[in-house]
């Protein structure tokens, strides 16, 4: 064959960022106003792709939390709980519409502050966030149909604490069902990614929501703890690490606060030898490298049936040669920056652990990392065993372990042999095998011949140490009502 000498590199195609307006300093959004923190303290939030400071953000202390909860409680008693469902829906629809209108700006800020590729924030995070508001707006005046022959009532004030991996989307997951069911909200975004939540506060202000119905405050773990422990909070919704989830559960023992936890995961992605192999390889890539692997439901444990293991691994390596890691704002970037220095250190420590455990490591030679910022090469650990720490513990980065299996019983046992149970994937051409396997997986979500598919109409949540309660769909209303 005559080799062609035609090679190309994609020329830089950066998304413009001049239209994204980020203030130098953000205060706390309490009672419909941005107010100075009583703590008088601010902290920096940065762009993880170049370590530049984007803004100063207020740190809420106990007094600030108290002000926010009081505002939410007052808004609940005086106004929001008396409003009809149809009226609540109007506000929620309005938020959805404005998110759509400002989607480009929100996408750019999401990528600037969180490091995720613009391809994902533009095509996934922001549209899905808007869709969640649309979906729950539709339920607001139909709650008696959601729960036939029962009378659903709102709870009061919901304290909601969200993680840094999908900042705006997680805010939408939390706020939309709470408002639709007639609750008021105090939301705290993660300390490393507060900007889109604060943009959402501006949107909520523009939408003329009654003051205090949604309060958005920023801070660290102490702020979250003050929210959890506040006596006037009726409902806590937390998405984040299993360790913090356990602390919250202990803290509220003996109170009547309702709790939803969406915690860690270590999902099995199972490829049988009759699977559509090329599409499975694509699904493996999407399963683990989506959002740099900062996904609680990431398919981080790959199980391949031994007959196709060599083929799958060699195709996976070839596919990884074409992944572009780099500037999150470049439209051609597949994998952006790791969210924080701390997280990058954690991932690196697991890479060392894997190598020390004697596993074969693969990182593509074709993959070049930018010199500045927090980046990590997509990584495979081949020949892993159930007892390896990199198999047992959640890494929350672009790191995939690969194990082989022979029989379906073996793979079900191993897939379930983990403290987590959030999600799983199965790849086979045979429908009966899918149903057999999915009914035996102890996981909240099981995807068949696809991975990382989300929809507002579909419930999401875990088993075991991955948490409890469901978000999304009809089930997502349940944690916010009493009968």
């Amino acid at each position: 064959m005559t080799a062609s000498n035609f090679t190309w590199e994609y020329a830089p195609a950066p998304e413009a960022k001049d239209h994204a307006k980020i203030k130098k300093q953000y205060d706390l959004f309490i009672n419909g106003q941005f107010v100075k923190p009583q703590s008088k303290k601010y902290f920096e939030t940065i762009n993880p792709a170049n370590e530049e400071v984007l803004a100063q953000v207020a740190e809420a202390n106990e007094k600030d939390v108290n002000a926010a909860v009081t505002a939410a409680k007052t808004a609940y008693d005086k106004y929001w709980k008396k409003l009809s469902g149809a009226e609540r829906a109007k506000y929620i629809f309005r938020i959805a519409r404005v998110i759509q209108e400002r989607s480009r700006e929100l996408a750019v800020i999401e990528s600037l502050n969180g490091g995720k590729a613009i391809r994902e924030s533009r095509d996934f995070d922001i549209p899905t966030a808007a869709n969640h508001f649309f979906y729950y707006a539709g339920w607001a005046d139909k709650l008696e149909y959601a729960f036939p022959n029962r009378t659903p009532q709102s709870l009061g004030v919901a304290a909601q604490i969200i993680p840094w991996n999908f900042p705006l989307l997680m805010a939408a997951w939390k706020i939309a069902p709470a408002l639709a069911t007639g609750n008021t909200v105090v939301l705290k975004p993660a300390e490393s990614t507060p900007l889109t939540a604060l943009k959402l506060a501006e949107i909520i202000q523009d939408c003329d929501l009654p003051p205090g119905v949604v309060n958005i405050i920023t801070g660290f773990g102490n702020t979250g703890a003050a929210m959890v422990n506040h006596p006037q909070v009726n409902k806590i919704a937390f998405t984040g690490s299993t360790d913090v989830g356990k602390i919250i559960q202990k803290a509220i023992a003996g109170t009547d606060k309702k709790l939803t936890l969406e915690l860690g995961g270590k999902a099995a992605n199972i490829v049988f030898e009759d699977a559509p192999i090329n599409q499975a390889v694509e699904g493996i890539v999407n399963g683990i490298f989506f959002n740099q692997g900062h996904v609680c439901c990431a398919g981080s444990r790959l199980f391949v049936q031994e007959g196709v293991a060599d083929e799958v691994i060699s195709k996976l390596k070839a596919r990884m040669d074409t992944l572009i890691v780099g500037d999150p704002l470049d439209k051609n970037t597949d994998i952006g920056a790791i969210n924080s220095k701390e997280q990058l250190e954690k991932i690196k420590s697991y890479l060392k652990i894997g190598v020390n455990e004697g596993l074969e490591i693969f990182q593509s030679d074709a993959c070049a990392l930018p010199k500045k910022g927090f980046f990590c090469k997509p990584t495979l650990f081949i020949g892993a065993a159930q007892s390896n720490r990199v198999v047992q513990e959640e890494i929350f980065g672009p790191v995939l372990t690969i194990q082989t299996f022979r029989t379906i019983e073996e793979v079900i046992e191993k897939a379930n042999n983990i403290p987590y149970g959030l999600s799983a994937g199965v790849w086979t051409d045979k429908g009966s095998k899918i149903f057999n396997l999915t009914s035996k997986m102890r996981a909240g979500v099981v995807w068949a011949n696809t991975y990382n598919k989300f929809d507002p109409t579909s419930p999401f949540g875990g088993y075991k140490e991955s948490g409890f309660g469901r978000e999304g769909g009809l089930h997502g209303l349940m944690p916010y009502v009493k009968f």
Partner: protein
Amino acid sequence: MDFKVTPVIDQVGIEERVARFNSRSIKKQTKVSCLKLALNIIDLTTLEGKDTEGKIKQMCYKAMHPADDITGLPTVAAVCVYPTYVGLAKKTLGNSGVKVASVSTAFPSGNSTREIKINDTKFAVDNGADEIDMVISRGEFLKGNYNFVFDEIAAIKQACGAARLKVILETGELSTLDNVRKASDIAIYAGADFIKTSTGKIQPAATMPVTLVMLEAIKDYYNKTGITIGMKPAGGISTAKGALQYLVMLYETLGPNWMSNEWFRFGASSLANDLILQLAKEQKGVYYSKDYISID
């Protein structure tokens, strides 16, 4: 080979992968070199009952001189005509390097006897065709008569002699991507030098999902044997933007070795003019009126 058992395809997965290719952004120098490559890999085609000698001659001139007022343009790869015009095309193209491809085997339906198909092919080769674009017997394929299809391709390959064989699957009649993969494997193992999507007479003609399935078949065969097979999507690719999307897919699926007219072709008639329009814009900074571009 047991062609009853070929790799399965997940249509949703294929469509998602295609959507990823289409979100790639090609700019600046990369764009210019890709547009030139796209022009250089076209099989400029006319396959109509109303073709005339004059039209063939004009098309051949266009193939050699796509737009002389723009500097640095390559020729197209080949012209594609019915067997009766092969001699004329060959003579007109002379030693320009532009190849002559001829459709054969009772194009486009393929409904004829093997003897006639072989003679059809030999006639084209004897008249100087460099490449033969045959059609498979879709009826036999859909019946499950895979050996018939295999043997027929092998027989035509023999009749081709030194001419390169492109096998048209007519994917618009195969109805599933599983069938597209199966037909691709049959054609490749039976001796095709190229596999090609469509005649252009049936809708849908070439689509990106179908082409991706065929590229994967080529890749799997290359991984197994080290033998390179070419690919030709044909019909329905009429814009420069669409062509660039195909090239992204080719690059990310098969890699740089396939990025020349030796191993990749577009079967198209109107694509060339849109490429010329875009290249002119890159050189002159403004869009031409289409009146400036010849429509041979």
